[in-house]
């Protein structure tokens, strides 16, 4: 067991993946000597060389497009998108090529490409540096979409993502990069939590709260606060956003009868809508209240001095809990 920040756990996970398989490459902007703007790739170029840790020209479509070519040639590229808001120049390569080429080839081509995206707000950044674009990708068939929320998952999930033969969009909660936890870097992969499953991170009886990435911590805090008012909240860290671990989710909601979904992305047309619709369909007779959602507003991400208002926080989550119990 070692105490690691989430960023360091990512770093060690990537290092392990590179050690385990010489076909694993890392590519992106400023990932070499600088080690990435969040230092997630710190030291990797020094140890694995410029051929395996590739500082690329400044163009995201180029990064994903060439990664696809490398994957066709048998490599397993891990691409870093520097910030959430800069994934859009790569949208075409991700949506029309990365997601669809395996099926286009009738399975003859596998594209084990990982696209790492530091996501979410709360770090006082300028525009485009605080977004949560997961819904654009969960809606895109052919992609797996996951989000880690803590150092243990960061360490294991990035390795699972690299090993997956499918393209994976991998969200990292940037404001949790410096959160610490004990990580067992010697654990065997077959003891890890399976890649496409969620996890109950707090048991509870009265309401199920679904969260992922940066919001898991907020959800846990809200659950603790609610506990003081005598409300027992079960918190599920979804981890995998496409596919979602519906058996886990519905089991919890059937038990509690209430559900609140929390994400930073705008609520409108976001992933929460899908989850709410699906849960309602599958647990219709168990729900005491409609599934409620807490998330970003239908506005561009605001300037940082307003982000505390935009981001779901303890109070807004608890407000939704209150409303759920109001039914």
């Amino acid at each position: 067991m070692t105490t690691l920040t989430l960023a360091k756990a990512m770093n060690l996970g990537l290092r392990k993946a590179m050690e385990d398989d010489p076909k694993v490459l890392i590519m992106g902007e400023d990932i070499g000597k600088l080690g990435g703007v969040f230092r997630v790739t710190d030291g990797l170029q020094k140890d694995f060389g410029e051929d395996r840790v590739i500082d690329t020209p400044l163009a995201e479509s180029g990064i994903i497009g060439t990664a696809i070519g490398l994957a066709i040639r048998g490599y397993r590229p891990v691409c870093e998108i520097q910030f959430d808001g800069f994934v859009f120049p790569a949208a075409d390569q991700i949506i029309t090529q990365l997601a669809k080429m395996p099926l286009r080839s009738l399975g003859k081509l596998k594209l084990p490409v990982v696209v790492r995206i530091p996501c979410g707000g709360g770090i006082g950044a300028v525009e485009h540096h605080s977004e949560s674009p997961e819904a654009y990708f969960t809606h895109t068939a052919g992609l797996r979409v996951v989000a880690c929320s803590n150092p243990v998952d960061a360490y294991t999930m990035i390795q699972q993502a690299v090993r997956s033969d499918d393209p994976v969009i991998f969200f990292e909660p940037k404001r949790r990069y410096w959160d610490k936890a004990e990580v067992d870097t010697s654990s065997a992969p077959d003891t890890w939590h399976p890649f496409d499953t969620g996890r109950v991170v707090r048991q509870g009886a009265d309401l199920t709260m679904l969260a992922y990435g940066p919001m898991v911590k907020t959800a846990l805090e809200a659950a603790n606060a609610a506990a003081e008012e005598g409300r027992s909240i079960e918190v599920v860290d979804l981890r995998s956003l496409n596919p979602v671990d519906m058996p886990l989710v519905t089991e919890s909601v059937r038990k509690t009868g209430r559900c609140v979904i929390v994400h930073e992305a705008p609520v409108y047309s976001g992933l929460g809508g899908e989850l709410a619709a699906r849960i309602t369909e599958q647990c219709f007779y168990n729900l005491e209240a409609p599934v409620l959602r807490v998330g970003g507003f239908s506005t561009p991400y605001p300037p940082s001095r307003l982000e505390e208002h935009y981001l779901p926080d303890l109070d807004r989550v608890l407000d939704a809990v209150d409303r759920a119990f109001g039914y």
Partner: protein
Amino acid sequence: MTADVSRGAQSPPELVQLLTPEGERIEHPDYDIDLTAEELRGLYRDLVLVRRIDLEAVALQRQGELGLWASLLGQEAAQVGSGRALTDADMAFPTYREHGVAWCRKVDPVQLLGMFRGVNHGGWDPVEHNFHLYTIVIGSQTLHAVGYAMGIQRDGAESAAIAYFGDGATSQGDVNEAFIWASVFNAPVVFFCQNNQWAISEPLEKQTRIPLYRRAAGFGFPGVRVDGNDVLACLAVTRKALADARSGQGPSMIEAFTYRMGAHTTSDDPTRYRVADELESWKLKDPIERVKAYLAKSGIADQSYFDAIDAEADELGRDLRRRCLAMPDPQPMAMFDHVYAEPHALVAEEREQYAAYLNSFEEGAR
């Protein structure tokens, strides 16, 4: 004067040509080629067969057997010339029109029909043939080719990638990013642009105001314009570019100057936007006629050879038609196959539900 180009004061583009439209063999200081009689006959055969495949496909479309077809008519030399320059180990990334290259890569022609018939999105094994699937989103494949070439580099292999694209494609950001990547990484890739003068209804002037091969210089690698209707020149120029790439000299761009003799696709109506004269003048530069004339003149082949090839072409056409009609429709549940390489709960669930739904009809439940 530090400006590289003063406006308008450009030297006229040169064109590498080894065989004139009249079938005369000419020399070029930089590009020489020495082919055996058999190789020359082989190229002629390729050209004729490829055109025949194309004509058959157009006919199949007219008869409703294909939903669409993108004809290569007029571009046979560019495709066969470049395609025959490839070794087995080289990897080609085509657009949707590279039926001639596919032929050179030994893709069974019937497999080309799959996506146009609507039975799949790409029927052949790209790894087996070192011929990637057709890419429809304009320009995307150029980046794939560069990435693949970077893989070749990392493998220390002696092969190259070739990216096919059209004149229209040169305007896409992706193609330009591919140029940049290739030059920065000195990747073993050849950019083969078939400038057929048209992007659907838009003439070349809508994409560029200078000859396209000159783009390459701006990115720091060589560009050359070749007579795209001259199979020998296309072969020679591509061989050289591939050899350069394989030997670590990095990327180059080839602009094969040619002409789209037909419609953009069978859905298109070129009479709306181009004049018949243009077509007539290009007919005189036909890529097959000049080879035939040369073979005949030089005694490498005679009428009986030409007749034999025509017969082979007819048989190929008939066979293609037969096998097209025999192509089975895909099974509904195939929709759910290969979306992911590994098990995926959501797709599995939808598959199951849809199977049950279809079943409910068969069981007469409705």
